[in-house]
């Protein structure tokens, strides 16, 4: 087995700046600290599994899954088109893809409101050509739109970078052997791009579960999401024990799901996330 000294700086970094701090905060989930000393408790962890909070968790996961799927469906063709171009303009186009995300998030989301509002620009435009107004703002659709908008580049870029390098000889070979474009895509291109797709899914799904500002601003704060709940515990309620229990359980849950997913993938493709 090869030694990997090249990862040591990284592992050291992550242990100091991720594992240790996380341990510092997760301590709150099972220990209570008061004047009488330090005690062990499972009440916070138990509380996470109350139906009230499970509803919140499931809702967040559902929204994140839907957004991830839409990002993939919208993003994959874009990545393909961008990767196809035989120009030096390719890299410029890919930069153009992320620039909108460099503008402040809050300002961008406010701009979306200007577009989507009842008296917003989209409805004004629809009215001008005699079409009925649409009502998107303050629905789940607006939340999903916001998530897709903010996470799309995180899906497109990794897929693009993988597709760019797929040997055109492989594709031509498939076509020569009589494969239709659909078959070529299904049997050759897509499987080869799978590592990029997995990275994209990871980078969209994971942050999407815990985001909540989008749902607060575009969804009208109608529903508490898990990220919201966690933030509330750390700031408003000052219940760090419950807050860190929530994030702890969420962490375990998602890592396990990812683990199972990649195990399944490994059987089929080899490689994958783990």
């Amino acid at each position, binding site marked *: 087995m090869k030694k*990997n000294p*090249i*990862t040591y700086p*990284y592992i050291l*970094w*992550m242990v100091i*700046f*991720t594992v240790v*701090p*996380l341990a*510092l*905060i997760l301590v709150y989930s099972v220990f209570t600290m008061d004047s009488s000393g330090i005690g062990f408790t499972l009440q916070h962890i138990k509380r996470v599994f109350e139906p009230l909070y499970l509803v919140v968790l499931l809702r967040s996961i559902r929204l994140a899954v839907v957004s991830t799927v839409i990002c993939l469906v919208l993003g994959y*063709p874009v990545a393909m*088109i*961008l990767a196809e171009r035989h120009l*030096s303009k390719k*890299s*410029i186009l890919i930069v*153009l893809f*992320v*620039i*909108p995300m*460099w*503008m*402040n998030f*809050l*300002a*961008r989301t*406010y*701009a*979306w409101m*200007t577009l989507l509002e009842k008296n917003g620009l989209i409805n004004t435009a629809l009215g001008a050509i005699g079409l009925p107004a649409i009502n998107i703002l303050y629905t789940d659709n607006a939340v999903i739109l916001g998530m897709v*908008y903010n996470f799309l*580049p995180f899906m497109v*870029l*990794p897929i*693009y*970078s*993988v597709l760019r*390098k*797929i040997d055109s000889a492989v594709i031509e070979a498939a076509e020569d052997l009589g494969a239709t474009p659909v078959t070529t895509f299904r049997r050759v291109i897509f499987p080869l791009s799978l*590592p*990029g797709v997995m*990275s994209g899914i*990871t*980078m969209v799904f*994971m*942050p999407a*579960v*815990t985001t909540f500002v989008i749902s607060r601003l575009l969804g009208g704060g109608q529903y508490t999401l*898990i*990220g919201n709940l966690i*933030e509330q515990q*750390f700031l408003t309620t000052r219940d760090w024990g419950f807050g*860190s229990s929530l*994030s702890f359980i969420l*962490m375990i849950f*998602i890592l396990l799901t990812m*683990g199972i997913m990649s195990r399944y993938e490994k059987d089929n493709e080899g490689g994958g996330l*783990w």
Partner: protein
Amino acid sequence: MVIKLLKRMYTLFIFFFLYAPILILVIFSFNNSKSRAHWDGFTFKWYAELFHDQQIMTSLYYTLLIAIIASVVATVIGTAAAIGIHNMRGIQKTFTMNITYLPVLNPDIVTGISLMLLFIFLNIPTGFITMLLAHITFNLPFVILSVLPKLKQLNNQIFDAALDLGASPLTAYKKVILPQIMPGVVTGFLLAFTMSIDDFVISFFTTGSGVSNLAITIYSMARRGINPKINALLTLMFVSILLLLILINNRMSREDERKEKLT
């Protein structure tokens, strides 16, 4: 032909989707009213006010500085780490990958407060350096997740072939592996920069007095309404990035032409 047109239109649609809100930002930077709710005439006054706002200028400076340093450092460490992780097997790999997911997975508030606790615990005064360390930390996974797929694509024999031909492992990495995974590295850098330039929560909790980035300034403004000065600033940022891109693009195509002439 039809397919080509469809592709064109689809790309256009996606770019329109991405740029629609940016267009709104730009338009409202010229709005006379402080509210984005109605148009109240054309003005340049927000631009004038922007240049007199020392605080916004300072936070812009810190934002760019931190974003550049953090994404460069994260790209270097992250690319190396990705190569190492790629060579790992079994439990070792599982462990490292799960650590990698943590900053992506955790809500910003948890990452932010936990890092703040760490810095206080280690007695490091919060400020520029601590904010930078935090940014590098949450940037790293994005670099790794971008580089890993490229490595999986790689033909492992190339590396061995280079070694057989007498290259040292370092040279082999530099001359053989790196060029192959470059698109992934660039992608990783871009995503890291994107994360860094627009982070509020983690930055807020890890910075100290006197150092603030644009996101902190803008979020703090929200209670009183985001000042159109911010729209003016974002417009200027946007325009200068576009100009820079056009400049680079022109130079690149000129180089291409020169190469073509040579051949």
